[in-house]
């Protein structure tokens, strides 16, 4: 495993651990904008999300009766989905006007 692959593997493991394990300890209080909206009285202006009834809505809140499991599943899927979409877009965006780097 070369160095870049090792960094990638370690980084991905850390990201998954954050999304699956550390996220279990996340505060459930409203975030800054939600709080301000509640305090200032415009929270009710929010309308239902178009995809609010999909299985992973609100990070899988209604997936099972086990909140920890829901967060873990949502965290894992979300981390991998972001990696996949990011990888794809950066692959399409990458610099192509130079010779490709040597094979690993």
């Amino acid at each position, binding site marked *: 495993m070369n160095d870049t692959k090792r960094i990638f593997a370690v980084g991905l493991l850390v990201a998954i651990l954050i999304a699956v394990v550390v996220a279990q300890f996340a505060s459930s209080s409203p975030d800054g904008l939600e709080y*301000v909206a509640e305090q200032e009285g*415009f929270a009710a202006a929010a309308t239902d999300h178009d995809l609010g009834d999909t299985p992973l809505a609100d*990070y899988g809140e209604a997936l099972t009766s086990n909140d920890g499991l829901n967060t873990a599943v949502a965290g894992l899927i979300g981390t991998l*989905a972001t990696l996949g979409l*990011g990888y794809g877009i950066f692959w399409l965006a*990458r610099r192509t006007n130079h010779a490709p*780097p040597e094979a690993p």
Partner: protein
Amino acid sequence: MHIPDGFINGATSAGFGAAAAGGLGVAIKQTGRYLSERQVPLAGLVAAFVFAAQMVNFPVSIGVSGHLLGGVLAAVLVGPWAGFVVLSVVLIVQGFVFADGGLSALGLNIVNMGFVGAVGGYWLYRLLLKALPKDGRGVILAAGIAAGIAVPLAAMGFFAQYVIGGTASVSTGTVFASLLGTHLLIGIGEGIITALVIGAVVHSRPDLVYGAPAYAGERTEVLR
């Protein structure tokens, strides 16, 4: 920080949607000027990391939490325009997979977090780095402070959108004060997390950090 549907009227949301789409096009083009094939996996990883970190809300006061925005973090690691792409990718996944952040508000959120948070935040970082030593400590300090300022700045992005097209008739003065107060607190957490992560990477591999003077790849601008 994620604006839901309904806070900002349709015309304003659509306008920001068009601006965000145009911005993403520019960001992808700019990224293509420097991001090499071998950097693609790490840039994707930065998006995954920002998504993961955004799941972890930390308490900032009684009954209020905040989470990482990650704009400066991403921009210092992969460059300001790739940072814009990172935040856009994160917001697209959150909006479409997790119903977090309204779909009609996607453009509003991309402008606040991607443009103000990453591109604007990187500009602040560069400004701060000019006054700091060009070593690991300078990079960490500049990144932490810029990240801390970028959060209230992004919240001001929402304030501007609220002034232009807010659907509620709440006095803008009190909304401004309340937004600024809470996001200054969240900014402290943002600054600490950003400094810790940038510190870990810059100590082990400064050559991989776009915003570090020791960066080994190509950049679209000269870092002095």
